[in-house]
């Protein structure tokens, strides 16, 4: 009996939180593909005002206007590359969260791998030096002597 009361409370609780979870989108789309393209683009475009957010998450006024532009272009049938080009022409590669590989972004793209390789090298050296420590273990004779002393 008690348990069912708790369950019903939980149910009410979960149901009442649902409307909060559903994010209201201001825009309506003709097809699910358009909506998917829109959502993908706004999550990959960087907000220029609050620079560590994508424009989907940003409430900055410019981000709202960039979302509207993105929506308009999606509805005009532009594909993702065309939308990305539009943004890059105006704001440069900076606007893309995944900028193309070029001289200026080479370190950005290769950095994680370089750090990974350095980490592996350091790890191997540490392991090897640990093994060397083990190599100066006691010889059988020394061990016997030590055991003798510990008696």
């Amino acid at each position, binding site marked *: 009996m008690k348990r069912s009361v708790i369950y019903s409370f939980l149910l009410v609780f979960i149901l009442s939180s649902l409307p909060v979870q559903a994010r209201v989108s201001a825009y309506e789309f003709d097809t699910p593909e358009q909506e998917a393209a829109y959502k993908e683009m706004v999550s990959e475009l960087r907000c*220029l*005002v609050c*620079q560590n957010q994508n424009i989907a998450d940003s409430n900055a*006024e*410019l981000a709202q*206007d*960039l979302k*509207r*532009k993105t929506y308009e272009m999606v509805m005009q049938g532009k594909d993702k590359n065309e939308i990305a080009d539009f943004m*890059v*022409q*105006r*704001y*440069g590669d*900076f606007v893309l969260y995944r900028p193309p590989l070029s001289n200026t972004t080479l370190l950005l793209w290769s950095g994680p791998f370089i750090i990974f390789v350095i980490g592996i090298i350091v790890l191997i050296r540490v392991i090897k030096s640990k093994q060397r420590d083990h190599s100066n273990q006691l010889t059988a004779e020394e061990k016997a002597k030590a055991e003798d002393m510990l008696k």
Partner: protein
Amino acid sequence: MNKAAIPLVIFLVMAGMFLFVLQKINKGEYDPKDIPTELIGQKVPDFNLENLLDENDRVIAADYLGKPWLLNVWGTWCAECWREHGYLVQLKNQGIPILGINWRDDKAEAMVFLKEQGNPFIEVGFDPKSDAVIDLGVYGAPETFLVDANGLIIAKHKGAMHPKVWQEKFQPAFN
């Protein structure tokens, strides 16, 4: 070298680097939020905006071909725009043509602002939805562009206009 000193050396090197960058920021030589502009050397976008002071009129970029001019993006919500305004009025009095773009502003407030602080602009385009602003790659105000007689953007300054920047980057085009 003593192995124990390595972390200390790394710390000192990093602290030195942070100090160096911090000083550059304080002197205004470096802004970490700055985005390299894409528009230098390109044609000024052919915007077509409502005239802030006359809703039946349009402000069109193509009307300005044939002589160098300034394009200034501003809004009454932007503190730095208030700061540079007096200097823009000075430039206007020297005969420099300045076209204003009033960005995401309250129309009535913008009109009062120009009335009270003086109007340095030949025309002011009203851009409540960032149409021209996005085409210009602008993400903060104020921002000033220099457009040459052929309609090409040849210089740009982000932040309040002041005499040093004016003399270095902008004035030569008007001599």
